[in-house]
């Protein structure tokens, strides 16, 4: 009994869809790395490049949407194929949001000074690295259909919350040291928040992948770390 669809074009359409999601994921990942780099090194030259790659990511999004519509109307997918189709829809939505957040962060580099405190940058970098790793892991688990890895990413959201808390603390500290820093701090707060939200989207993707593989939703609520008191 072959594992491929009897109708070859169905097999190809499904493969094409999955590949598009993977490519979109890679783009999103490299964009996030660039964006993080730009923030830490306060590199204002790379902003344009990042904005351009976001356009690419959006193009992928609409391409994937079209492919999904075609698949649904042509193939009336069942079981694993249905989950695969719906998952690629949800994942591409989350990836697009992550791309937007990376772009937003890159834009925030423009007004930043070049002499931000080491500790602040260090905390931000740690948060950023973790989020990037999460994205890398979740994309990995998508490619390899690795349930355990996806579940790990889902659970690690707690760490993201914790690191966000720490980074936020340094920014607030920076703000309190000098009233001149208000402008920069606002940007930095947003940048930190964006990273946390990127993490949430990555957790969404992890949940979607778990559903894709097992056919059931993850039980229980997401693990939550420390939350900043508003």
């Amino acid at each position: 009994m072959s594992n491929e669809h009897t109708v070859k074009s169905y097999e190809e359409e499904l493969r094409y869809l999955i590949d598009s999601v993977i490519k979109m994921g890679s783009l999103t990942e490299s964009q996030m790395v660039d964006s993080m780099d730009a923030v830490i090194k306060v590199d204002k030259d790379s902003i344009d490049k990042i904005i351009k790659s976001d356009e690419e990511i959006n193009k992928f999004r609409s391409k994937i949407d079209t492919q999904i519509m075609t698949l649904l109307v042509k193939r009336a997918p069942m079981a694993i194929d249905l989950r695969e189709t719906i998952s690629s829809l949800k994942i591409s939505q989350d990836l697009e949001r992550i791309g937007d957040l990376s772009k937003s962060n890159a834009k925030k580099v423009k007004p930043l000074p070049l002499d931000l405190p080491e500790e602040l940058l260090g905390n931000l970098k740690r948060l950023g690295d973790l989020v990037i790793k999460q994205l890398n892991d979740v994309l990995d688990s998508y490619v390899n259909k690795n349930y355990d890895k996806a579940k790990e990413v889902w659970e690690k959201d707690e760490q993201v919350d914790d690191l966000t808390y720490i980074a936020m603390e340094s920014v607030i500290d920076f703000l309190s040291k000098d009233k001149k820093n208000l402008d920069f701090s606002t940007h930095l707060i947003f940048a930190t928040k964006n990273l946390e939200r990127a993490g949430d989207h990555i957790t969404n993707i992890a949940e979607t992948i778990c559903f894709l593989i097992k056919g059931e939703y993850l039980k229980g609520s997401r693990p939550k770390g420390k939350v900043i008191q508003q």
Partner: protein
Amino acid sequence: MELMNSVKIKSKNLNVFYGEKQALFDVNLDLNEKEVTALIGPSGCGKSTFIRCLNRMNDVIDICKVTGNIEIDGIEINDKNLDVVSLRERVGMVFQKPNPFPKSIYDNISYGPKIHGKGETKSELDEIVESSLRKAALWEEVKDRLDEPGTGLSGGQQQRLCIARAISVNPEVILMDEPCSALDPIATAKIEELIDELKKTYTIVIVTHSMAQAVRVSQKTGFFHLGKLIEVGKTEKIFKNPDNKMTQDYITGRFG
């Protein structure tokens, strides 16, 4: 918690042989009351053979041998002493190709009740004919031409006529062997709508080649392959997330 319908038909260790060739292997399947159960599987997998066991239609095939138990409401029907005629009064059947009798529409419906002594006077029969045609959603279309031959109707109408004919003897179970395979999409939709209504009164078992149809009309689905019941369960589960890989391969079109 969901309300489970009670079991109407139980098959246990059902084996069917056509001469030397075995067509069904140890089938254990429960069918619930007032529910639609769909049977799916590739050609020759035994699903038609299975439903034909439920009304002993396999008796007409000389070389067919059936062993095992089938109970309807607790009564064993594979008993040699069972009166098949009264069994078929309780378990009706609709076939793949519509086969109305070459008689008038009225006579098509009234034949069953007449031979079972269900309608003695003309007005009683009139009532049965009207109510059966109404239940089959055909009354409005044919009420002015009950004397015309049943074979003069369109394919979809003929099939609804056959459904009305099956209903006319007031059965408890209706077996449908690919009832829509010879019909166009509009006729198919009308019959699916009908099945939705009918399941409130009758237990329905439907064999279908259309996966989409099985999903639309049934609450429970059984997947057969090469004479074995591979998987059975709630329809939504079977089509969203089946347990068995073979089931998944079949419904996604990965069967070689």
